[in-house]
């Protein structure tokens, strides 16, 4: 790395942080220059989020020095202080107030937006930011944020970080910002970071999608076990090098290649024929069916409809068998935050563990322990609170909950967003194994690369299916084409 390229806006040195016995950061050095995009990569639990929280003032380090714009700021460093220095953070866990609109959330963020007419000014501020970053976003800035789908919430959160009132924005931390955005919105955001850099704003970009990083970042820092284990200019690194530095990934044997699996005859989900489209959803036992397309074009509605129709003789959708649902929005519809890992795992399987309505604690613990081992959930024991786990591991617990439920149909609502590659590969294997055993999957994902795990893929556009693609015919071009309504089965 060359030191003359721009003045260092932030310099972190020797940052240490422990949570109880767990050492999250063990002496991290990181330099961020104005007008540059720094990317931090690493597996779940490598310490990326902890480091960013310290940089944003949300956590105090146990040791180490933080220098911003040339001044040491360790004492009394806080989110407020960081914000006054121009440091903004888009956290992985969305931090908007769900009952407030996008404009009102902007007001919360900017105390300077006071006095008569603040509503109009807040609306303009967030509206302009949204238009600049995500042209054609289609977000109603008057609606309570909680009513927006997760992709749009992420856009509001991201856009808000770039709004300015009294303090200019000097550094924006984007922690996994593209995980819940579809391909178009993610591309728009990455393009915008270029514009921001041209205005001398520094950007820290965290993502599990390595191509995004290599294509857009200036420098890359690789973290492992709470330390920076490597760094370099993005254009001098390859994906393979990054993966190697991040740590050994268990080699994956994909002998059960999708498509070669024996799909059973039994139909699990069937949509009635419709006049306006020849395409309708059908899911057989043992099948993994992907739902693709841009975010919020009807995929989630289908999953919800299947979930609601299970066990009911519905007129619109026939569902034959029990269902389990795994949401990628773990904070609002996944975890039970007051409970242990174990209780979070077993909640969908209680009926089988109970006699006369009372649970057998030994059997419950055995079930949770079994799934902890099978999915390699990183926790000292199943009695630890679920909130003590890293985000990716919490997501694993939710997947374990669905598997433990022994349902006939598992509905995946983009459950692996923000999960690292090694973990994803492990989970893919479990999906294949479960499908082998007859479980049917409906899998909505915002990451097209994930669709290679599917036997068939339905592409959604504006609430209807525009294409059905068999595993063998799956190409990125065809998915993207159909995502914009150009499905080959639709007369244009």
């Amino acid at each position: 790395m060359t030191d003359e390229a721009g003045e260092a806006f932030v310099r972190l040195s020797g940052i240490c942080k422990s949570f109880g016995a767990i050492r999250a950061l063990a002496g991290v050095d990181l330099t961020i220059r104005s007008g540059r995009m720094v990317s931090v990569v690493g597996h779940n639990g490598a310490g990326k989020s902890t480091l960013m929280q310290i940089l944003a003032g949300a956590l105090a380090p146990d040791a180490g020095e933080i220098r911003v714009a040339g001044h040491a700021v360790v004492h009394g460093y806080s989110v407020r202080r960081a914000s006054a220095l121009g440091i903004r953070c888009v956290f992985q866990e969305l931090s908007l107030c769900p009952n407030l609109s996008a404009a009102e959330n902007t007001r919360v963020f900017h105390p300077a937006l006071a006095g008569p007419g603040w509503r109009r000014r807040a609306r303009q501020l967030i509206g302009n930011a949204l238009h600049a970053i995500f042209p054609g976003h289609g977000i109603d800035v008057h609606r309570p944020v909680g009513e927006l789908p997760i992709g749009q919430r992420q856009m509001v959160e991201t856009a808000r970080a770039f709004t300015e009132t009294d303090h200019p924005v000097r550094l924006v931390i984007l922690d996994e910002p593209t995980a819940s955005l579809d391909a178009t919105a993610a591309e728009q955001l990455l393009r915008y970071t270029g514009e921001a850099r041209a205005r001398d704003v520094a950007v820290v970009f965290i993502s599990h999608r390595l191509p995004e990083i290599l294509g857009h970042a200036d420098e890359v820092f690789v973290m492992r076990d709470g330390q920076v284990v490597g760094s370099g200019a993005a254009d001098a690194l390859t994906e393979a090098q990054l993966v190697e530095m991040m740590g050994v990934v268990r080699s994956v044997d994909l002998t059960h290649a999708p498509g070669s699996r024996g799909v059973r005859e039994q139909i699990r989900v069937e949509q009635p024929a419709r006049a306006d489209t020849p395409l309708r959803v059908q899911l057989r036992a043992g099948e993994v069916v992907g739902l693709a397309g841009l975010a919020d074009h009807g995929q989630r509605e289908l999953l919800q409809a299947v979930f609601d129709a299970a066990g009911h003789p519905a007129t619109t959708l026939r569902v034959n068998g029990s269902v389990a649902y795994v949401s990628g929005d773990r904070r609002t519809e996944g975890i039970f935050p007051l409970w242990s890992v174990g209780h979070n795992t077993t909640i969908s399987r209680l009926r089988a563990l109970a006699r006369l309505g009372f649970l057998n604690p030994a059997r419950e613990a055995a079930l949770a322990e079994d799934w902890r081992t099978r999915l390699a959930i990183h926790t000292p024991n199943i009695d630890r609170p679920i909130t003590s786990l890293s985000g990716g591991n919490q997501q694993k617990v939710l997947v374990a909950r669905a598997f433990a439920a022994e349902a006939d149909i598992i509905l995946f609502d983009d459950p692996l967003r923000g999960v690292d590659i090694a973990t994803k590969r492990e989970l893919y294997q479990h999906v294949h194994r479960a499908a082998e055993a007859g479980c049917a999957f409906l899998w909505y994902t915002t990451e097209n690369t994930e669709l290679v795990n599917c036997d068939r893929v339905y592409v959604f556009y504006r609430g209807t299916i525009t294409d059905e693609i068999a595993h063998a015919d799956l190409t990125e071009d065809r998915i993207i084409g159909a995502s914009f309504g150009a499905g080959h089965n639709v007369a244009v």
Partner: protein
Amino acid sequence: MSSGIRAWLDARPWIWSFGAALIVWLVTTFVVQGRGMLATLAVALQFATFYVIVGIGQMFAIAAGPGNIDLSIPGVMTFAGYIAIGLMNGSNYGLPAGLAAGIGVGIVAGVFNVLLIQGLRIPPMIGTLASGFVFQSMAIAYSSTTNAPPAPLLVSFSAARLLGVPLIALVFIIFTVFVAVGLRRSMFGRAVLAVGQSLRAARLAGLAVRRTFALVYLLSAILAAIAGILLAAYSGGAALDMGADYLLMSIAVVVLGGTSIAGGQASPAGLWGAATLLDLVVTMLNVMRVGAGVRYVVTGLIIIAVLALAKGSDETA
């Protein structure tokens, strides 16, 4: 305070109400120079039992998540008390019919509340308040036709002592243990706590959300009816204002006892500490000959102090 001690205390939210009750009891004993210290405690336990019975129901409602509360408790207590005592009419032969009818009032009230909340989608706070008025009015109408004494057997049960301890307190301590185990180990308990933490997560985890809410309100109404019957028997007959105290007391004992008002967590043991505390405070201020005005101020301050201690370092982050 070291973090180890704090963690130990945080896992036992009921401890504060017991600590405060103990202090108040010792102060009272000091003021009266040790005379009748056990008798004071026994009387406090007797009255605490009535608070605890309705408090258990209220605890389930509050634990079921934001917006859930049962304000029909006073009305249900009063009406159930009148119906049960009226049918007993001072005779042990009327006891089974009276008990059945009184508990029947609880069941009807619970079903009525569920219909208001789930059928008509009225927020629980308003729905149960309204149904409470309905049952209170029915008690007023019924009270003009009866002035019956309770069955003697029920009177002796409600006032009986076992080795100096009120019998009904023992019965409901056992019931509280059952509730505490049930919250952890029963499907219903788990469902209530799950729903209270995250309604959407509970629904997607496949829990029977509507049935859980229905059972919570049914349970609360039945417990209110039982409290009404026992209180009426203990007081020698039903009275129209017998439930008045219980609207706010049922909530106070739940929150003071360490149950989170945000839902998803319940602290049944704490109900006993809180109920005993609230009763002992009144006793303490009485023996100190404090005026009514000051009494309310001191009661309020004690409640604030206990909650402040219990919540102390919850939000250290």
